[in-house]
């Protein structure tokens, strides 16, 4: 039999002005199961709390209802007091008779009746309530950072500086990501490599960071604080522990005419290579597709010339399992390609721009490489087809972006700015050239950004044309650009020597597959979804996984770095405790009755529901049922409302409790 105590607060006069608190307390005393009721001037004051504690002890109460303000105000206070008196805090509830009653009604009779009803509701709720123990989970204080672009680098360094172990997994042979490819960066035009490479070296040298380059995530299991991550280290064909990075192999490799991905295919590399001179780690990798040894069994030059004997043609992929407490996903972006898209792809190409067949139409990243002092042209702007300096150059913004007809309706956010930057770089390098930009809007919100764009127009003499380009074609060695100027209301035709497209930012190749491994959600474009657009912009809905950089949406470097540091801070917050304690409002499955339909699993927004095999004594699987991982469950209760057999229940909001409340109506 329950012994509930009801405490009705006056809140000075805030409640008692419209609610007859004495009558409410008296009525409460008549509810079956209520062992004690009283009213008091200020329940939250020390004497008020002491009254509560004393009553619990004296009347041997099994549950408490404080009829006062909103639980959002003082639930913590009273639960703590109840706890101090030896009661489970979760059988202490508040009946909200202030915000929901005395403050919003004037008719004393009706307000008093309502207050009594509210108390009754909560008494029934507490009567059916259970004692709950807070959930604690241990935390492994080691972080995993996936992706070694500027986002991953920043997050890793921050966490490592805080004294925690960090594992960085990068898919490519070197970390650096896109920022390593850039020439100079807006809005200050500092040299990207100059500010980037020291950070890359820091990663390599940091005692708390372990770098897995040329590696990928194979499998992720577990939950916040307790992930088990399997990493596949791809065969590099060079033993990292032996290689000194002398580069002799690279110099001697006879296969030298392979387009270098780092230079967007405009420079050449050998079959054994490092993507760029400042690569971290500075260990070469053999591109097996293009190596004569791997293709026909002949050559072996690199192994012969390698002093330390680091080249190993037999090397195989290796798998390592790591225990991880928190994960930062920083896999970045790729650029949209205007090529004809494969059958069935939701994103189309740009036939009107020649589907990528006109050699002097390039994308923004290629322009970065051409403008980069360490790029394939040594920093000279030369067009790919014949190496001539373009005197008329056309930039086109919003290519692929903001084009729902092509399958992408979002704005890529960075291209207005980098196009403005490109016109400046062009003007600095080709003094007698003219840059034209076709744009729809100049989106330049950011500190110093609009000033930057205006400088491109006013001082660097870029001609901005407000309108889109409809078509381009090659005529002789010119590209005819057919656009329009919507401000004048006429068509514009430019005979360009070279065209640079500001193509859309898209999520990295395979972003969806990685998300599925991690159990995090992503939008229809494959950008990863944050838990809340405004207030949880770095957390994933899945606890213990955080987002940084362009994998979550198009971002420039300042935004990327801010988010990366924020993600790192979140990881450090998590690592500040040895044990995670969380509200025990989580769902549980009654194993006896679950029929294994997994309707619950489909609706759970947190992916907290797993399949669990029930075995008999011989170890045969007798049935597969649902299991809620308490570390992951967010406590929304959607599963319970969905479950056809009502076998999954949310603690604190059981059907029994709610039905009991409804019965009082």
């Amino acid at each position, binding site marked *: 039999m329950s012994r509930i105590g009801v405490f009705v607060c006056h809140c000075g006069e805030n409640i008692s002005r419209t609610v007859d608190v004495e009558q409410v307390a008296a009525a409460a005393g008549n509810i079956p199961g209520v062992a004690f009721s009283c009213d008091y001037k200020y329940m939250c004051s020390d004497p008020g709390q002491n009254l509560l504690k004393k009553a619990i002890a004296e009347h041997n109460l099994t549950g408490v209802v404080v009829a006062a303000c909103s639980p*959002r105000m003082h639930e913590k206070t009273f639960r703590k007091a109840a706890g101090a008196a030896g009661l489970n805090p979760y059988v202490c509830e508040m009946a909200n008779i*202030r915000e929901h009653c005395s403050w919003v009604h004037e*008719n004393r009779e009706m307000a008093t009746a*309502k207050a009594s009803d*509210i108390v009754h509701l909560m008494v029934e709720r507490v009567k059916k309530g259970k004692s709950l123990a807070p959930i604690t989970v241990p935390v492994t204080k080691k972080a995993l950072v996936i992706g070694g672009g500027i986002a991953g680098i920043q997050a890793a360094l921050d966490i490592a500086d805080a004294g925690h172990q960090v594992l960085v997994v990068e898919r490519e042979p070197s970390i650096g990501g896109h920022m390593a490819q850039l020439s100079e960066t807006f809005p200050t035009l500092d040299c990207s490599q100059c500010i980037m490479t020291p950070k890359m070296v820091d990663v390599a040298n940091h005692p708390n960071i372990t770098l897995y380059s040329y590696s990928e995530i194979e499998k992720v299991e577990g939950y916040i604080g307790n992930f088990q991550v399997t990493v596949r280290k791809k065969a590099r064909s060079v033993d990292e522990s032996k290689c000194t990075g002398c580069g002799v192999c690279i110099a001697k490799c006879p296969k030298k005419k392979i387009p270098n991905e780092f230079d967007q295919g405009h420079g050449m590399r050998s079959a054994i290579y490092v993507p760029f001179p400042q690569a971290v780690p500075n260990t070469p990798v053999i591109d097996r597709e293009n190596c004569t040894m791997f293709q026909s069994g002949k050559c072996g030059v690199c192994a012969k010339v390698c002093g330390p004997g680091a080249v190993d043609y037999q090397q195989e992929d290796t798998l390592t399992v790591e225990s991880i407490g928190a994960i930062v996903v920083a896999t970045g972006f790729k650029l949209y390609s205007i090529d004809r898209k494969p059958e069935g792809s939701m994103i189309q190409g740009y036939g009107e721009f020649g589907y990528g067949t006109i050699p002097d139409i390039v994308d923004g990243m290629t322009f970065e490489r051409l403008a980069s002092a360490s790029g394939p042209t040594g920093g000279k702007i030369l067009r790919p087809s014949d190496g001539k300096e373009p005197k008329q150059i056309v930039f086109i913004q919003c290519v692929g972006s903001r084009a729902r007809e092509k399958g992408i309706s979002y704005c890529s956010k960075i291209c207005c700015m980098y196009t403005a930057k490109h016109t400046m770089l062009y003007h600095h390098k080709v003094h007698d050239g003219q840059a034209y930009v076709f744009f729809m809007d100049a989106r330049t919100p950011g500190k110093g950004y609009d000033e930057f764009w205006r400088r491109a127009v006013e001082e660097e003499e870029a001609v901005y044309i407000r309108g889109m380009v409809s078509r381009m074609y090659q005529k002789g060695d010119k590209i005819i650009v057919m656009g329009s100027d919507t401000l004048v209301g006429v068509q514009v035709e430019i005979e360009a020597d070279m065209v640079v497209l500001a193509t859309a930012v898209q999520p990295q190749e395979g972003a969806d597959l990685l998300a599925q491994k991690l159990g995090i959600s992503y939008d229809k474009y494959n950008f990863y979804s944050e838990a809340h657009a405004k207030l949880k912009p770095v957390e994933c809905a899945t606890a213990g996984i955080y987002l940084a950089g362009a994998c979550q949406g198009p971002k420039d470097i300042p935004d990327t770095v801010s988010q990366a540091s924020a993600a790192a801070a979140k990881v450090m917050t998590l690592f500040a405790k040895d044990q995670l304690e969380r509200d025990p409002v989580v769902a549980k499955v009654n194993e006896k009755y679950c029929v294994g339909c997994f309707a619950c699993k489909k609706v759970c927004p947190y992916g907290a529901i797993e399949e669990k095999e029930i075995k008999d004594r011989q170890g045969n699987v007798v049935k597969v049922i649902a299991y809620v991982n308490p570390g992951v469950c967010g406590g929304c209760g*959607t599963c319970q*409302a969905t479950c056809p057999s009502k076998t999954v229940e949310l603690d604190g*909001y059981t059907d029994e409790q709610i039905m009991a409340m409804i019965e009082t*109506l």
Partner: protein
Amino acid sequence: MHAEQVKHDFEPKVVAFVCTWCTYAGADLAGTSRMQYPPNVRVLKFPCTGRIDPVFILRAFQKGADGVLVSGCHPGDCHYMAGNFHARRRFAAFRALLDFVGVDLNRLQFSWVSAAEGGKWVEVVTELTERVRGMGPMKEFKELELEEQWSASLSTPELKAAYDSIT
């Protein structure tokens, strides 16, 4: 705000199923802003509208509610990301069912009230209360429940005879 409150001949019972994060907080805001609305509503708090089982709504009607309000976060603002989305889908199907069993759908209101929309809470509650007041007491389900009680009680001679014949 809405000045009130004289007692009417018919005071409907209105039950509101609300989520903690948005609508409950919105109702709190109406309170702290001292807005006024009819005292007919009883609020039941849920973590999320996703937790609200249509059975609760049926039961509330059976237990004498004349109007039911279900309110949660705006789409896209759900504290649990997608709970309200699932709830919406569930309720869409449920409305059809209610319609089928003969409940006037005007007695059931779904709305979105955010934590900042104290005013909207007042509007929604006032409007529903007044609407239901105009419609008069909800009879259909109460009768149903009476029937249920009747058939559940052993005191009728017919049932007694039936039971006797089994044992």
